[in-house]
């Protein structure tokens, strides 16, 4: 055993190296600290190596949850397509509100409210100008709505007291409107108290593709969210697509030099902002996806709740690259993952 202070300080540096990830460990000081800690207390060195996080092997039971973030990532719901008499495309979806207990961290259950039993709800995807019809059944014990972001008449806005209004348990309604404007949007329940109805899981991405389309890419949807498991109006859990550290355990595999497009939506409750930072790379950012011209070339983007944007990037080198919220607290409470770039 080393003297009292030595390992503690060494381990502290190691922890910082852990937080910063692989790039942090490249300095001589951090590397040495790693080594020292490993000699003194293997467990602490392990914590540094593993970027902290849940104990080894602790995983959420995705099967019991009924959804797996690894699959949600590239799962776009195109709905059922038919043609109206006019020849215009009619796209239809069915969404059902369901109360479900979800394992939001290994061993931690959360009484969630969901669309179609998953958080986030299905990523609804359509094309600009189509007619959209969303049949909504409330199978929950609580009243709910679906409030879409987009341009539509007041009665289709999914807020209490206007148009279709609040949908009571057991009832169902159909929302119908045109797909406009193109871009990345979202939908969520708008029943009060809003904090409960949003943060318990009733939200999802709503994507309207532009008429002329976007360049071919490996596309993925990331909904940044969190959970307040102890009802103190602050989050114990942060994630993209619900499960903390999910993409640390199962890195997102992408091809080298291939265009990657991330549809990023922030639905985090309680905290004012959220962010995404990609390691060792830069991306073009299209706020709300409503323009095909990027407005920024950066490696970190910030969003408040309801804000969203499209990211486009290519990874020129093979290897593992972290991505995480650039609020260290969020990152260490689960909002952290890896891209694995392969040839």
């Amino acid at each position, binding site marked *: 055993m080393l003297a009292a202070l030595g390992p503690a300080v060494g381990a502290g540096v190691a922890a910082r190296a852990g937080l910063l990830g692989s790039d942090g460990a490249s300095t001589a000081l951090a590397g040495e600290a790693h080594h020292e800690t490993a000699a003194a207390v293997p467990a602490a060195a392990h914590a540094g190596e593993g970027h*902290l996080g849940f104990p080894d092997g602790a995983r959420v039971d995705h099967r019991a949850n009924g959804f797996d973030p690894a699959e949600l990532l590239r799962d776009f719901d195109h709905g059922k397509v038919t043609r109206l008499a006019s020849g215009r495309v009619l796209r239809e979806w069915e969404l059902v509100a369901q109360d479900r207990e979800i394992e939001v961290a290994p061993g931690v259950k959360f009484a969630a409210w969901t669309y179609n039993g998953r958080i986030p709800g299905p990523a609804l995807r359509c094309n600009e100008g189509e007619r959209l019809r969303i049949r909504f059944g409330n199978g929950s014990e609580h009243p709910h709505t679906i409030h879409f972001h987009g341009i539509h008449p007041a009665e289709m806005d999914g807020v209490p007291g206007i148009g279709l209004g609040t949908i009571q348990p057991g009832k169902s309604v159909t929302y119908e409107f045109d797909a406009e404007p193109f871009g990345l949007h979202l939908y969520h329940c708008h029943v009060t108290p809003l904090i409960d109805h949003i943060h318990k899981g009733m939200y999802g991405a709503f994507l309207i593709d532009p008429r002329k389309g976007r360049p071919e890419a490996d596309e993925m949807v990331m909904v940044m969210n969190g959970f307040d498991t102890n009802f*103190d109006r602050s989050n114990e859990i942060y994630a993209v697509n619900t499960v903390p550290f999910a993409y640390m355990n199962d890195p997102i595999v992408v091809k080298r030099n291939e265009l990657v497009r991330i549809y990023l939506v922030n639905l985090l409750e309680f905290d004012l902002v959220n962010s995404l930072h990609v390691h060792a790379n830069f991306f073009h950012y299209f706020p709300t996806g409503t323009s095909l011209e990027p407005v920024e070339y950066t490696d970190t983007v910030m969003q408040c709740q309801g804000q969203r944007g499209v990211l486009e990037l290519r990874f020129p080198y093979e290897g593992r690259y972290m991505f995480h919220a650039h609020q260290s607290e969020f990152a260490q409470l689960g909002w952290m993952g890896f891209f694995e770039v392969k040839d």
Partner: protein
Amino acid sequence: MEARGAVEPAGGTLERAPAWLLGLVPLLLIVAGIAVIAALGGPGLGERKGPPVEELSVERTVLHPGEIELTVRNDGPDPVTISQVIVNDSYVDFSADEQKVGRLDATKVKIPYPWIEGESYETQLLTSTGGTIDHEIPVAVETPSKDSSFYGLMALLGLYVGIVPVTLGMLWLPFVRRISAQWLRFLLALTIGLLAFLAIDATFEGIDVAGEGSQAFGGATLVFLGAAVSYLVLAAIAGWSAAAVEGSRERSRTRGWEIALLVAIAIGLHNLGEGLAIGSAYAVGALALGAFLVIGFAIHNTTEGLAIVAPVASRPPTLMRLVLLGAIAGAPAIVGAWIGAAAFNSSVAALLLGVGVGAIAQVIQQLAPAIRDRSGPILRPLTVAGILAGFAIMYVTSLLVNI
């Protein structure tokens, strides 16, 4: 006899049964009745409503380089499962003896964590229902390892704050032998004041300590329970020894020795509590061991030596007995420091502090007659002044040793 005769016709059989059987039958019926209710799960009451109640308290925090270890006890009615651990807003690796902690059970949660000396840490145990048990480590300091040098250090500490000052205080014996009966009464009243202050102080200390840890074993109730038990036990001992020496010529001499012994025991129990406080504060790094602390305790505790010798002023005991009295009063500080540093448990500490309080109360009761002027009341201006002086001395010297 008439009443007996009147019930005889109705209760003839019962009357003939042996008394032990009459005592035993209701007991068996009670046991059987409770067993039936338990077996049926309290018929008619149904399941309890609402989610499980999750109450965990952290009894002990041990810090080793690169590791935080929490001993957690389940205070609540339901088992609690610790699913994840958060330290300073970060999920951390951990291992627990048992992740599911049963009612009143305890478990050790080991967290590999690169803590830094002098910084503070907020740990949260996230349970299976998503609840959090928060525990703050105000200042991270390595917990001393329990080797022989550690016990040696604690013994030295106990010696400094216990035996040495008490023994020094007893050096007032020649002085108290020379003063007039009236001034001796004043000194005895002063002793009562000192002791009363200690009792009040220890009561609040005990309540504080009890509030910090697990409430499963009674919390602050333990202080009063400890006080009642020690008061009653010492009262019984005092009554028994008084009866034993009744009528003996040695009466007055024995009486003085007895009271001095009781005072020494009471102060010893008090110093046990004081040692506990010092030892546990040292173990969590909340106490700087320095000359100031030792000097403070020396001044504070020399008054305890005076309290021991005042009752034996008229007929001083042998030197051996004086040494024995000093040891009884002072040595428990060493034991207390050991326990406090090595195995501090707030429930045990509260109980021990309470035991000290009860002992002091008993001693005050024993001392009270001695400050009475032959026929007068106990509280006269001189004795009241003595008691108040005792308070004042203790109050002022206690300011030196606030830990």
